[in-house]
């Protein structure tokens, strides 16, 4: 295979690197380390962080792209497929390739719509009859014995749950050993201490969240090898596969956007607040103008113009995946360019206050250069605002993606995202019987992701906001 680095992959891995460096840096800053320790004590915050870590794992697996090698004769030069796949696609190959004809309900063995099918009668003759056809893959191993489906599903789910419980108990034991090692306690005492919630790190919340994730993941995996756990969509694609692929799109929108927002907001906000005068006037003018255009309309105008650029320059993009990827990045940039104003205004106000404080004035009296004051004295004291804004914006951006995709100014229609899933599925509620699974799966996953982000944001805000302490 041939590795492929899409532009959004590059940004994602840059973000991971930035996160690692940031964690290392804040561990050495006593104030920031103390604040993060407060986050670690928050039960809802840590449970949410565990969930987000699971989502992040899916997203990162989906950011390792490659082009599979095509089967070639010995001696020939190796050829690669046009299709770009990711590590997640490779893991989910059965889900990706086992495509049905059209809709099928979750865990169904028969299709959603009736069709003319040939039935073999007991005497061996073939009769044409209108009935629900068997699915090609859903419950295929059952053969003709469809009545066994319920027992089969229950058996698979139970054995998956039992497996998950074993793994979970092992993880609990590991955590308890760690607590025992830290506090110099026996294993039993540490175990009780852990579940009393008596530890400096909210181990109990993390373990409960892990247990839930393991249970859901195990049941999904156990059933997905045989059934379509969340059903299939109009073209017969597995909904579980689509939902998992949507996670990366949501993460890119939520995180890469802040990569654009932060430098702009930090630089312009601090400069305006610290230097005042004409720089302040100019920057204030800039963000008042941007702010006064209603967000959706500004994004709509910018995205429409971007579409014109993309459509009139088809030669720029080698593959459809590349075009969709660049469109996603452009959307992030547009969202970033329109949403830095709020944070910049906050930082400006704070910088205005800080520049009057004694330690800044002392630095000025010592003749420290302005740039150094900005970098060494102002920026570290504004970091809590930046961190709070970063986590607070994430959930809003994930929700915005769905709305923008519905309006038609979101991600490329070929890119799987919560927004495109909802957009494709919302007309299906009009069918009889109702096709609800696609829509509900997208909403449920989005809800869990956004709820976790909101809970973590609350924990982070409580820990970092000096007014809360």
């Amino acid at each position, binding site marked *: 295979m041939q590795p492929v680095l899409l532009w959004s992959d590059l940004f994602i891995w840059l973000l991971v690197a930035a996160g690692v460096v940031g964690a290392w840096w804040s561990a050495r800053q006593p104030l920031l380390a103390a604040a993060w320790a407060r986050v670690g004590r928050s039960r809802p915050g840590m449970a949410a962080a565990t969930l987000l870590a699971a989502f992040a794992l899916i997203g990162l697996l989906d950011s390792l792209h490659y082009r599979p090698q095509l089967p070639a004769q010995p001696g020939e030069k190796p050829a690669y497929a046009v299709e770009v796949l990711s590590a997640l696609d490779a893991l989910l190959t059965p889900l990706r390739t086992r495509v049905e004809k059209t809709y099928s309900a979750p865990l169904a063995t028969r299709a959603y719509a009736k069709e003319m099918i040939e039935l073999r009668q007991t005497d061996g003759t073939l009769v044409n009859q209108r009935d629900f056809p068997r699915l090609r893959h859903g419950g295929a191993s059952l053969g003709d014995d469809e009545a066994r489906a319920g027992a089969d599903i229950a058996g698979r789910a139970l054995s998956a749950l039992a497996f998950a419980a074993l793994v979970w108990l092992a993880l609990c034991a590991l955590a308890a050993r760690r607590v025992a090692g830290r506090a110099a306690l026996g294993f039993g005492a540490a175990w009780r201490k852990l579940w009393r919630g008596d530890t400096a790190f909210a181990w109990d919340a993390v373990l409960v969240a892990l247990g839930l994730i393991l249970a859901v993941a195990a049941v999904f995996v156990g059933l997905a090898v045989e059934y379509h756990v969340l059903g299939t969509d109009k073209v017969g694609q597995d909904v579980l596969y689509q939902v998992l692929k949507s996670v990366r799109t949501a993460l890119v929108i939520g995180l890469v956007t802040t990569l654009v927002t932060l430098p702009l907001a930090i630089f312009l906000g601090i400069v305006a607040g610290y230097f005042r005068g004409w720089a302040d006037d100019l920057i204030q*003018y800039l963000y*008042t103008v941007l702010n*006064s255009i209603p967000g959706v309309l500004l994004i709509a*105008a910018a995205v429409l*113009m971007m579409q014109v650029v993309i459509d*009139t320059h088809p030669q720029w993009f080698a593959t459809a995946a590349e075009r969709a990827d660049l469109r996603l990045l452009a959307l992030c940039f547009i969202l970033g360019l329109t949403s830095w104003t709020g944070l910049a205004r906050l930082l400006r106000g704070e910088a205005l206050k800080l520049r009057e404080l004694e330690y800044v004035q002392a630095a000025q009296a010592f003749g420290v250069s302005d740039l150094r004051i900005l970098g060494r004295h102002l920026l570290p004291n504004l970091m809590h605002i930046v961190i709070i804004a970063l986590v607070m914006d994430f959930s809003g951006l994930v929700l915005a993606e769905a709305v923008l995709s*519905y309006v*038609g100014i979101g991600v490329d229609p070929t890119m799987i995202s*919560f927004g495109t899933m909802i957009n494709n599925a919302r007309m299906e509620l009009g069918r009889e019987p109702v096709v609800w699974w696609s829509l509900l799966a997208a909403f449920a996953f989005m809800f869990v992701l956004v709820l976790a982000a*909101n809970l973590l944001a609350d924990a982070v805000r409580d820990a970092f906001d000096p007014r809360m302490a």
Partner: protein
Amino acid sequence: MLAYVVRRLLYAIPILIGVNLLTFALFFVVNTPEDMARMQLGVKRVTPEAIEKWKAERGYDKPLFVNAAAGGVGVLTETIFFEKSARMFVGDFGRAEDGRDIAREIRTRMVPSLAIAVPTFALGLFVTVSFALLLAFFRATPLDFWGVVLCVAMMSISGLFYIIGGQYLFAKIFRLVPISGFGEGLDTLRFLVLPVLIGVVSGIGSSTRWYRTIFLEEINRDYVRTARAKGLAETAVMFGHVLRNALIPILTGVVVVIPLLFMGSLLTESFFGIPGLGSYTIDAISAQDFAVVRAMVFIGSVLYIVGLILTDISYTLVDPRIRFG
């Protein structure tokens, strides 16, 4: 006061010019009119004549800023910038792709938008303020805790879910109200109930949480302790003191969106088929009608700036401590 308002109005002019220049740059400099014509007419196999015709029909065949060919004032007025951007200041938005006058369309579509947006806004404000006051009254009790949990859960649900779910449940399953549409006179009410209710419910989560923190901040003030020390009942403290003072940040925070109610709601209007400005904008976006989008951007920013001025005025009205010279 009057001098202050006049000064604020004058301050709005450079901002509007900035908005105007920004949208002009977005629509005409990032892409040339040729690109737009190609996009509208289909990218492949389009003759230069067709492009020229498309541009001439819409007045895009003139130079951007300076028209040296025209005489006299025409050097500046016979340009795309003057005809498409500067004329917006006098309320002339040109014509949409279907040939209709945009300004006229906006006037007629304003009414349905307001019919949805105003009740949603008023009812929403009442419900969220009452709910937040309730939570603040029962602060640090299980009621408060689960109320906040409910708020966080509600704000984590996509706005699309409220609309799709509400429409499905109340219009399709229970058949209480029509799924979508808009009527005349009293008949309209049937169509309005569901979108207004959904609008209120979808806003509960984030607003209630915000108002609750405002109430809690107010409860910890000294004057509240004084009021309690005087022996006032908790309800008298809450309604007579806390509510009145907390309404200042709430009202001033809310005033800025009042003018924007004219713009309607994009999602609600398009899902419920209401012929307002929100659905007009959505249709324009999906039909790539650049003239309409440009007009809506301009009107939106005018309304936002009006909202900012109203906010400043409302400060002086509700908070006697603030005086503007």
